[in-house]
């Protein structure tokens, strides 16, 4: 009888991630203390928020009843700038990032070239597009040309890194067999590497096209042209219905780009 009574009737789920009980308690206390400290630094002006709610409501109405017509010339100009900027910067960025990516593949080039190319990639990836845009706008003046340069620069880091990682993971047997025919380095790239990485490179370029459009909407805020500039102006003028229209256009184009690029990538691979 006693053994039956001792049999546990309840079961507690064992902890999954932090197994030690003391660590768990310490973590919970630490998180609690941090949250108290962090939330205490956020001083919210509630009367301002309350005032703003009415404005928020107007914005929501503007989003539901967007006004495409009254600022259509501005919107269409921003849109053309954004789209052209996206395409040209992706093309130029990919063209530059192919040699950089090959140079950053450990299995193809000598060490010195490898470090230089990895350095270029690291610099391009470390800084945000918006910060680069600030500098390029200061150097090249306002307008889509600065935006084009920003996006090309950001594209180099993205494509070159993923391409280099992809080249490092190729099937060595194929490269070996091309080498065994006495092929030169250029022939090796052309016949062993390129066929293996080309589908992925095209896929990455399409993906980057998609990202570049999204980013082109952002860098306009700091003066690099495109639809972001139009959006910034609309919000500064408190024209929430025009801003809603711009946002809807951005969402629509991003959706179309995402679906068509994922379809194309499936078709190509």
């Amino acid at each position: 009888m006693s053994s039956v009574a001792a049999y546990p009737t309840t079961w507690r789920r064992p902890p999954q991630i932090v197994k030690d009980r003391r660590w768990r308690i310490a973590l919970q206390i630490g998180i609690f203390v941090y949250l108290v400290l962090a939330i205490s630094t956020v001083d919210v002006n509630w009367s301002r928020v309350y005032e703003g709610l009415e404005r928020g409501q107007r914005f929501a109405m503007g989003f539901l009843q967007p006004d495409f017509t009254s600022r259509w010339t501005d919107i269409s100009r921003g849109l053309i700038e954004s789209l052209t900027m996206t395409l040209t910067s992706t093309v130029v960025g990919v063209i530059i990032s192919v040699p950089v990516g090959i140079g950053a593949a450990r299995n193809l080039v000598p060490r010195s070239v490898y470090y230089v190319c990895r350095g270029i990639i690291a610099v391009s990836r470390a800084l945000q597009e918006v910060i680069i845009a600030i500098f390029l706008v200061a150097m090249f003046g306002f307008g889509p040309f600065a935006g084009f340069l920003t996006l090309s620069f950001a594209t180099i880091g993205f494509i070159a890194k993923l391409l280099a990682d992809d080249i490092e993971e190729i099937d060595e047997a194929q490269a070996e067999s091309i080498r065994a025919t006495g092929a030169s380095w250029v022939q090796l790239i052309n016949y062993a590497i390129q066929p293996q990485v080309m589908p992925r490179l095209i896929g990455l370029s399409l993906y980057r096209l998609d990202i570049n459009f999204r980013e082109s909407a952002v860098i306009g805020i700091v003066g690099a042209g495109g639809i972001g500039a139009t959006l910034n102006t609309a919000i500064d003028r408190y024209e929430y219905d025009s801003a809603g229209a711009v946002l809807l256009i951005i969402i629509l184009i991003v959706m179309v780009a995402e679906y068509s690029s994922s379809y194309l990538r499936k078709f190509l691979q």
Partner: protein
Amino acid sequence: MTEIAHYSEVWRHRTPRKRLFMWMGWLALVALFVWCWQLMTENTMWYFVLDAPRQAADIGGRMVPPRWSYLPELMQPLWDTINIATLGTIGGVIMAVPVAFMAARNTTPSQTILRPMALFIIVTSRSINSLIWALLLVAIIGPGLLAGIVAIALRSIGFVGKLLYEAIEETDARQIEAIEATGASGAQVLSYGIVPQIMPAFWGISVFRWDINIRESTILGLVGAGGIGLKLQASLNTLAWSQVTVILLLILATVVLSEWVSARMRQAII
């Protein structure tokens, strides 16, 4: 002594027809590029572009040496930035969990209404950058940390929601069935069948997003949403380039550190 004809033929990767199509494709791309380039540079002032190297040298000259005495002033904004990212991530994750459960095919309460709605929320949140969210929120609820936190949270919903709902859809159906076979209610199935399976993915995604949010919150101040970006904006407006250098180096250090922390944490979890 006649040579066999086909030996002398040069091997080619593709048939002539395919090659023709490929050349047409490349030609179309080049034409499109040239056309876009002309449209884009219609209003470009080439005078400014040609002037750029001189400008770059000028700015570069003003940026060094960095004004290190500015560093102590930056600690409070840096703390704010980290708080924006962390609190924003927490808020975003809290909102993303129900959205993810509504969007996953195997847990959604209704395929026809709630699932498309959840997917729309995810797409909207993903396609609008946090800087644009911040721009809107600063106009609506006023400048300050709250706008930044809400912007980061709204932006995180899409990212976390998308990855989490994919994780939910990949759960092992047999484990869920086993829980169901014990006579568990819907909530119990969720709690004992699905949640333990997605827990590692959940923490991994959250930490990953936190890392991205640190990166993004450093620039939110440019539109008035608090943090170190405010200082950056102030320094840029007063053309204090030596302070800009200090801020950029600090941002870089923070980003690298947060990347390291998130990589370590994800390694520990998964």
